[in-house]
Each structure stands twice: as structure tokens, then as C-alpha cells.
């Protein structure tokens, strides 16, 4: 029986702090630096009232750090989880997209036959969306910029009818020459891909420190290599898509997005609406990997079609749309020169890179990691971004660094070979103890521990003995390694509310999103830890701009480190309120109370009560806490690090590579949930393995058309390709970074995979691998060149 309610006693000892006079009040809004996807941005932050004590390595934590299963695992595997594609609204129409059948030219559409088809309710063409631009291109433009570009949308009562309608649209193309690759775009007399020309106006982007000419002059050994990486496609299981519905002048949109607030701003701006008249929702999501950072073309099209036709509209890309018109990782050509002393000390790093961007997207570039990963006084990178008649680039899991690492780390491994040095030893001799590119300290750096423990776990030092142990004479075994660095600090703004219900269950409300990474679970763990609640009693509510406080895009590996501290602060405020109420009920002082596993207890006494009892006694009094993310430490870079060790078998007769084992050692500060964190490592290793061995968008250069925009022909790895993956984390909390001690970890582990595998292949066959993916024909070709 719950005891009868009685009002809580007023809090003891709580006296308001003296009100500061105007003159003494410290500034409440300050600027701070936040690194997102390799770019540093200055953000304004409102200094939080509450700054919880950092959870350092000595902190006694019970839920944070526990291997609890993903809280939504059952919904996901039973089909109960609702994704954007599952949203069905009354009277909803389905949209099908007509796409450009050529890479360049001008399209003329005849939609009359489509409109005459059964069930077709309307079409959208250029005139309906004039002024809406994505990546600098007019939506539904009649000027064709790339094959697969949307030209028109047909809406019908069902998807099959919409597709039949789309097939009935007559598209006439007045052809124009195209340039779909670097060779074509940079050739004399190349067709103009963008009106400004084929080279980005910001190119070449030159970044340098020191004096590379002097560095090369001082070098005792110099190597130069050229590396090539392919266009890789995100291939998220859930394609881009949205459902839009209007109620009067108010728009609701369900979209598969990494950023509900970004999507809201994009839509509001394009449609001339106030932000409060646009509601964006997203519950479950089947992956984004960086390609879903704002309103997608599908969302604009759904919103405009719904307004025009007066019914909710669902617009989602099909798989071909997803593989041609949903972003990609840019290809790169990287010409690398390294200079070093005989002992391995780097004296110069020079990169000259050319990057075909497609029609646009941002200029991630492979260059940055060259400045960050290894100590070297003289570094110069030059990056030239080239427009091509292909779909625009979109950030893709550690954009820039993943491509750059293939060049930099491969070159380092080649240098180690040239010097007769162990590649790991070469890296140790060039260990950067501070952020040289920005000339400031690191919050923490435990890459050395990754090197040491990774090598130990892998058996790096007795690899020579294992080399000969292969199944057949034509199968060679090889070993390789590579390292990574990536901004992992996160930062403001991010807000959270924690609400206790009458039964003691808690809702964590924050406008972040879970892309499938496990944020929902991790944030609940942080709240449960802070409240002393049972994890099962905590629910994280994400993904609704109307009902939840702001949190930024889930990108750049920032969610845990950005939103986690806000959730902790909110939960702490709620817990303090709860304790004030419970203190009276337990006849104890607030400071004597502690809570764990849903039970509040009084220090040095047997008196306890559950959080549920306390809340129930409070009736409909709602215990609530608000929290926000504070600024980042000044003059500090907050990176995550890692080192990978790969073992492969190569059949030298067929050129087939089999990755046997990857050991991935990472430093990402405190790990809130090792199981979920390791699954990020495993996922990244598989995605990186696909990048290294199989994945490559293929276009026919003459026709300008994509050849393999299906999930069968664009070859992502299968389970049978998965090596033994041993992923683990070193070190502990990074309390300089933020008060949870956690840093980002989802992107870094893709960075070293391809160069580590390439090094292992090179080790096995005695020939360097200058290009990925390392298909059988490329391996055979390198074997031949090597003789």
C-alpha cells in the first residue's frame, strides 16, 4: 500500500545565491568551438546553471558502462519498430519519381498520358518547385546535370499506380555532352558541368605549415606514390524518404533524417513558413551514414505535392534512386610525397589531391588527416575539387579522413618498407603529442595505448612466424596496420528534459535522433545512472521538433558527447528535486540521500523507498529537470583515436583477398555501453572492408550512366566476408572533454580499415596496392607489375 500523500516539506538549507549586480554578471552567452565532420565551427552557448562533477575513472557507476542490450532490439527484430516508410496517413498518396535518363542535356516532359492513367492524382514539375535548390541545383530542373536526377513526380492512390504513371511520362532529351569523371571534366574543351566551370572556385585548397621544401631537402629518404579511391555509396538499408501532411497552414513531415531541426529549417525556408508551423518527426531509422543531414529532395517533393493535391503524400527513393541520387563518398586521386630521416623521423608530408565531387556537396577532402595524424613540422596539402555530371557528394562516415587515410597510411607503410622499419615503430617515432594543425593541446590522447594493446592482442610482433601458415602454396598470408584520428568532442547546443511520472518511470526528452547507433539506449543509461533509476524504467523520446528541446544533427560522431551531458544535467536536476521531496518523506536530510536501481536510501540508516513510491506520493506534481550542454574547453582539440591491425590471405593465382582478422583498438574516452560501442566498431570494420575490397560505383564513361545501382551489383560485404573482428577500447574517461568523459566513436573505426588491409595485402604478395577496391583484377595486375 502506498502511504497517504502528504505535501513535501520545503527544501532545507536551500538559499538563493546572491543576485549578481549587472556589472559583475559574467557573460551568459559565450562562443565555443565544435568540430563536426572534420570542420570546426564556432557556436554560441548559453552557460548552463548546472555543471555536474565530471565522471572520472574513479567514479562509481552502475548503469553507465554496463553491457545492456539495445532497448529497441525487440521492436526492431519483430517488425514492431515504425520507420518513415511505415507511416501511413489517411488518404495518403504515393509518389513516384521520373529520373533523367542521361547525364546532360535538356529534358522536355509530356505528362498528359500519366495524368490520364487510373489512380493518378497529379504531377509535380519544375513550375511547382521553382526556387527550391539542393546542392546549388534547382529541384526538378529541366536542365539535366546527372543521370538519375529527378525530373518530375507522379502522385497516385497507390505506389504501383504512381510507378505506372511515372512510366507513362514521356521524356525527350535534347542531348548534350557530359563529363562524368576526372579525365572528361579536366580535358581540353570539356563540356561545362557548372556555369562557373569544372573546377570549384575554392580550388586548389592549400593548407600548409612549416616549409616542405626545406623538409624535403633535409630528408634522407623520399618516396612518392599515387593512390586512388573509388566513389562509394552509403547504401543505407532505409532509403531517403518522407511523408508530408498539411493541416491548414501547418506542415507535418515524417522523414528518415539525421537532423529533424535542420530538416525543419530547410522546409520552413523553402516553403515560406514559420518554424513553429513545421513539425518534423522521425522515430526509427535504417541508417544514414551522413547522407541524411537536412531536408531531402524527397521531403520537399512530398511537402509541395501534399500542398498542391490536398492530401498527405509519401515520397521515398527506390533502391536505384538511393544508389544514384542520395549522395556518395567522393573518389580521390592522391599524389603523396613523404620525406624522412633514416631513423624514420618525418621531415615533410606533401599531398596533391584531385577530387571529383559530382555536381556539388561540400568539400570534405582527403587533406586534413595529413596534418593531424602524425608529427611532422612541414606539411602541405593541395586539394582540387572538380565538378562532374554525377550525383552530388554527401558526407559519408568520416568523410575526407577515410579517403585521406588510404593515401597517408599507405604511404607511411611504403616508407616503412623503404626504411626497413616496422610500420608500427615508424608511427611511434612520429607520435604527435599535441594538435599541430591548430597548435593547441589535446584533451587526451591514448593512441600509444591503442598501438601497444592492439599490437599485443594481434600478435603483431610474432607475425613473421605466422606468415608461412597458409592452407595452400598459392595462398599467401600478410599483415598490416594503420591508425586514425577524428574529432570526437561534440559540443553545444543540446538540450534535454527529464520527467518523472507518477509511477517512478522517467522520460528523457531530447530532439536528437537514433540512426540505429543506439543513442536511445545510451542516453537512457546516462539518465538512469544519474537518477539512480532502473534502466527499464527510463524511456528516451527522440525525433520530434514540436515536442522536444533542440539537439543538433546526429552526425560527426557527436551525439553521445553532445547530448549525453545535457541529459545528465537534466537528470541531475530532476534527481535533486526528487530528493528534496523524498527527504521529507524519509525524514532525512537531502544530502543524506542516494539512489540506485530505483531505490532511494538514507545514508547510515535502513530507511528506503522506491522512486515510484516517492513519485506516487507526490501525486500529479511533476518532477522535471532541464539540462543543456556546456561549452567545450578552450584551446583544446578533443579527438578520438584508433589503430587497426589486419591479417589477410591472398590467392596469388586468382587475386582473391580474404580478410581473416582485424584487431581494432580505439580511444574514445568513457564507453557508456561497451556492447553497442563494439557493434559500432564491427559495423565500421565491415563497411571499411567493403570499401577496401568490393564497393565501387561504376559509370559507363561514354554513356554517362550508372551501371551498378542495385544492392546486388554494388557489392557490400556479406556475413560470409566478415573476418574475426576484435574491437576494444583503451583508456578511460576524458574528463577534459565533457563531464560524462565520453567521446565520439562511430566514425573513427572506418578510417584505418582500408589502408590496414591494403598493407596486409602488400605484405602478402610483395607488391603495393595503390588503388581500392582491391578486386581480383587489381591484385593480379599488381602482382604482374611486381613480376
Amino acid at each position: 500500500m502506498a502511504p497517504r500523500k502528504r505535501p513535501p516539506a520545503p527544501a532545507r538549507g536551500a538559499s538563493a545565491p546572491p543576485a549578481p549586480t549587472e556589472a559583475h554578471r559574467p557573460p551568459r552567452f559565450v562562443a565555443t568551438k565544435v568540430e563536426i565532420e572534420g570542420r570546426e565551427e564556432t557556436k554560441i552557448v548559453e552557460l548552463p546553471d548546472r555543471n555536474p562533477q565530471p565522471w572520472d575513472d574513479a567514479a562509481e557507476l552502475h548503469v553507465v558502462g554496463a553491457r545492456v542490450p539495445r532497448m529497441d532490439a525487440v521492436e526492431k527484430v519483430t517488425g514492431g519498430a515504425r520507420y518513415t516508410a511505415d507511416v501511413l496517413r489517411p488518404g495518403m498518396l504515393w509518389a513516384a519519381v521520373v529520373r533523367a535518363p542521361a547525364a546532360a542535356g535538356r529534358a522536355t516532359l509530356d505528362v498528359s498520358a500519366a495524368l490520364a492513367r487510373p489512380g493518378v492524382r497529379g504531377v509535380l514539375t519544375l513550375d511547382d518547385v521553382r526556387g527550391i535548390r539542393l546542392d546549388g541545383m534547382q529541384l526538378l530542373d529541366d536542365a539535366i546535370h546527372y543521370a538519375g536526377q529527378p525530373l518530375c513526380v507522379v502522385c497516385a492512390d497507390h505506389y504501383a499506380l504512381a510507378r505506372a504513371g511515372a512510366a507513362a511520362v514521356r521524356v525527350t532529351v535534347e542531348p548534350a555532352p557530359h563529363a562524368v569523371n576526372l579525365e572528361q571534366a579536366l580535358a581540353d574543351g570539356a563540356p561545362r558541368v557548372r556555369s562557373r566551370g569544372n573546377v570549384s572556385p575554392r580550388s586548389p585548397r592549400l593548407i600548409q605549415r612549416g616549409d616542405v621544401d626545406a623538409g624535403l631537402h633535409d630528408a634522407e629518404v623520399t618516396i612518392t606514390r599515387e593512390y586512388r579511391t573509388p566513389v562509394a555509396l552509403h547504401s543505407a538499408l532505409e532509403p531517403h524518404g518522407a511523408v508530408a501532411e498539411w493541416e491548414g497552414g501547418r506542415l507535418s513531415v515524417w522523414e528518415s533524417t539525421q537532423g529533424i531541426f535542420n530538416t525543419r529549417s530547410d522546409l520552413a525556408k523553402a516553403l515560406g513558413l514559420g518554424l513553429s508551423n513545421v513539425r518534423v518527426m522521425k522515430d526509427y531509422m535504417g541508417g544514414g551514414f551522413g547522407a541524411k543531414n537536412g531536408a531531402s529532395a524527397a521531403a520537399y517533393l512530398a511537402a509541395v505535392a501534399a500542398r498542391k493535391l490536398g492530401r498527405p503524400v509519401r515520397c521515398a527513393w527506390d533502391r536505384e534512386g538511393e544508389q544514384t541520387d542520395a549522395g556518395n563518398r567522393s573518389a580521390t586521386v592522391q599524389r603523396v610525397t613523404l620525406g624522412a630521416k633514416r631513423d624514420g623521423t618525418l621531415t615533410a608530408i606533401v599531398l596533391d589531391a584531385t577530387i571529383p565531387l559530382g555536381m556539388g556537396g561540400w568539400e570534405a577532402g582527403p587533406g586534413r588527416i595529413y596534418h593531424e595524424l602524425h608529427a611532422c613540422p612541414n606539411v602541405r596539402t593541395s586539394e582540387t575539387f572538380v565538378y562532374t555530371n554525377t550525383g552530388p557528394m554527401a558526407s559519408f562516415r568520416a568523410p575526407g579522413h577515410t579517403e585521406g587515410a588510404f593515401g597517408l597510411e599507405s604511404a607511411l607503410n611504403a616508407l616503412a618498407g623503404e626504411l626497413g622499419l616496422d610500420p608500427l615503430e615508424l608511427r611511434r617515432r612520429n607520435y604527435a603529442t599535441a594538435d599541430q594543425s591548430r597548435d593547441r593541446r589535446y584533451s587526451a590522447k591514448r593512441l600509444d595505448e591503442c598501438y601497444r594493446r592492439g599490437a599485443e592482442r594481434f600478435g603483431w610482433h610474432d607475425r613473421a612466424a605466422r606468415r608461412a601458415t597458409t592452407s595452400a602454396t598459392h595462398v599467401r598470408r600478410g599483415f598490416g596496420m594503420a591508425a586514425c584520428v577524428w574529432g570526437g568532442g561534440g559540443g553545444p547546443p543540446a538540450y534535454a528534459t527529464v520527467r518523472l511520472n507518477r509511477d517512478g518511470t522517467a522520460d528523457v526528452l531530447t530532439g536528437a535522433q537514433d540512426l540505429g547507433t543506439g543513442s536511445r539506449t545510451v542516453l537512457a543509461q546516462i539518465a538512469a545512472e544519474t537518477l539512480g533509476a532502473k534502466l527499464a524504467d527510463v524511456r528516451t523520446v527522440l525525433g520530434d521538433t514540436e515536442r522536444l528541446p533542440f539537439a543538433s544533427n546526429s552526425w560527426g560522431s557527436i551525439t553521445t558527447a553532445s547530448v549525453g551531458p545535457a541529459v545528465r544535467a537534466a537528470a541531475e536536476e530532476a534527481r535533486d528535486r526528487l530528493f528534496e521531496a523524498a527527504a521529507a518523506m524519509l525524514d532525512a536530510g537531502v544530502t543524506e540521500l542516494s539512489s540506485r536501481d530505483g531505490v532511494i536510501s538514507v545514508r547510515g540508516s535502513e530507511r528506503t523507498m522506491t522512486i515510484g513510491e516517492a513519485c506516487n506520493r507526490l501525486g500529479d506534481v511533476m518532477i522535471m529537470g532541464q539540462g543543456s550542454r556546456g561549452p567545450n574547453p578552450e584551446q583544446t582539440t578533443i579527438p578520438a583515436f584508433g589503430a587497426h591491425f589486419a591479417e589477410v590471405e591472398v590467392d596469388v593465382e586468382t587475386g582473391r583477398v580474404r580478410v581473416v582478422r582485424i584487431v581494432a583498438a580505439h580511444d574514445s574516452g568513457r564507453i557508456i555501453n561497451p556492447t553497442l560501442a563494439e557493434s559500432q566498431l564491427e559495423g565500421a570494420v565491415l563497411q571499411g572492408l567493403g570499401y577496401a575490397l568490393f564497393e565501387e560505383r561504376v559509370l559507363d564513361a561514354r554513356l554517362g550512366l550508372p551501371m551498378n545501382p542495385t544492392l546486388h551489383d554494388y557489392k557490400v560485404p556479406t556475413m560470409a566476408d566478415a573476418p574475426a573482428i576484435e574491437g576494444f577500447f583503451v583508456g578511460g574517461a576524458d574528463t577534459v572533454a565533457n563531464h560524462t568523459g565520453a567521446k565520439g566513436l562511430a566514425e573513427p573505426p572506418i578510417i584505418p580499415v582500408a589502408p590496414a588491409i591494403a598493407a596486409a595485402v602488400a605484405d602478402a604478395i610483395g607488391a603495393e596496392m595503390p588503388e581500392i577496391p582491391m578486386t581480383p583484377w587489381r591484385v593480379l595486375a599488381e602482382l604482374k607489375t611486381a613480376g
Partner: protein
Amino acid sequence: MSPFTYHRATSTDDAAARLAGARAVPMGGGTDLLVAIDEGVVAPAQLVDLRGVPGADAVALDARGALRIGGAARVHDVARHPAVLERWPALAQACEAVGSPTLRQMGTMGGNLCQRPRCWYFRRGVSCFKNGGDECPAVDGENQYLAVIGGGPCHAVHPSDPAVALTALEATVEITSAGGTRTVPIAAFFVPPAEAPERETVVGPGEFVSAIGVPAVSAGGVQRYHKLMQREAWDFALVSIAAVRPAAGGVRMALGGVAPGPWRVNSSVEEDVASGGLDDDSISALAERALYDAQPLSKNGYKIEMAGALLRQAMRELAT
């Protein structure tokens, strides 16, 4: 995608009668057909599903020890059939190498032999010999997965794994239509592109594969099917090989992935392998002889090396 009707045939006669209709095509598991319709590669008006025909999915031995596989037998059922596993293991291995478990469960043997090539240009509707055009765009294009031998004017390869094993096993294909039934040796089942680039098999309009026969003389002995893919699963063969030395003697080898259809290795090479006593040098020489006619396109030369490796491996295995 054009509209079509669907009929589940109740008997062989029913199927044959239905298939005599205009633009009627047989359907097995639909794993290829439905996708091809969806992609607009083919546009039939009527689908005649053969899976309901009594006995069409049977896999059985006859009195003389030959194997009869119904045209609608599932690939999985052939892969796991005890008699196939024991007596024609090359066929079991080839069936087991098809696609993925779901595809093997859905896909039928008739459909597998009659599936359309995966050439990107054909599948993406680029004008080519297979879809009414008069040039092969792959010759100057992305031809890394296409034929290195026996190709031209179309260079697409036939994607079936079982067909390669059936070729080495000298199977026969029974073809039925309203006009009756004929049986062709598998070597005559696939049509070279020089003869008719728009199609791959002799199965004409109104006809369907009602059964596949595997002779008793092909049973037992040493039998292997090896498939090289880019990844470990769910991939078509870059190159594959079926190699058998049946209990009754003789050596037969067929390559997949290298030619427009399964490529039976030259009989003089087979005879030399059968006569035995080969050292590494003679094995290499024989492998080269087997591929003497190969003429790679711009991007598929690696297939010759792969085929050479598979031939050498198979010859060593057959020698033991």
C-alpha cells in the same frame, strides 16, 4: 512495367496450352522473371506458373539409375537431395553455390537454366543485341564481368551455376510445348550469340523446360564444382568450373563465367587429363591449351588467369 496476367498451371497440358497464348512465359520462383519485368527488361502479357503442376518439382531416380529433375524442382531441393549428393556431387555443389538461401528456396531448376544474363547494359535497358539493338556497348565499356571466350557479337555470360555442372555431367533437357516434347543434350541447349544474340537457349515461344535428365554414366567418381566470386556469398561466378571423372571413366570439364554459355573444355584436353600421369608442367600446359581461344575484352583479362587457376586445381583433383 507492363501489366500481365498470372495463371497457376494445374497440369503439364494446362501449362502448355496456356503458354501457347500470346506473349505468355513460364514462371518458376519468379526470382529473376519478376525483377526483369519490374526493370522493364521483359514485358510478357501472361505468366504461367509451373510450380503447381503435379510432379513438376520432383527429383527422382529412374530404374536405370538416371536422375530426373522436374523443371519446377527447387534449386535447394536438388542441392540437398541424397542421391544427388551421393552420385552427382558436382551438381549438388553447383546448386549449393547459387545466390543465397532465399534464392535457392524460391528458384527452380528450369528457371535457373532460363534466367537472363546479368550484363549491366542489357539489364539497364541500354540498346544492345539482346534487346533489339545492333551493337554491344560493353565492348568499349564496363566489360569486366563479360565473356573472354566464345563471345560476339554479344558478350554477356550466362549466370547459371547448375548449368555448368550439368554440362560436365552431359545432362539432357526435356522441352515441352503444346506440340509435344523434345529432348536436347545440354550442349545443344544454349545458343551461341553468333547464331542468335537476342536469346540464350533453344527454348522457343510456347515451350518450357519440363525436366532435366542426368545420365547414370555421369555418376560417382571424383566430382568438383568450384566458384570464384568477388565476395564470399551472394554473388555470380566470376569464373567457375565443374570437373568430373565419373566412376564409369573419362574426364569432363566445363567452365562458367567465361563464355556466353557453359564452356565445355576441348575434348583433347579432357582426354589428356583422363590418361593421367600429369606433372605440374603438363597441367599448366593443358590449362593453357584449354584457354587457347580466349580473347579478352578491355577489362576482363583476369578471367583467363582465374580460369587457368581453376583448371589446374581441377586437374590436380581429378588426378588423385
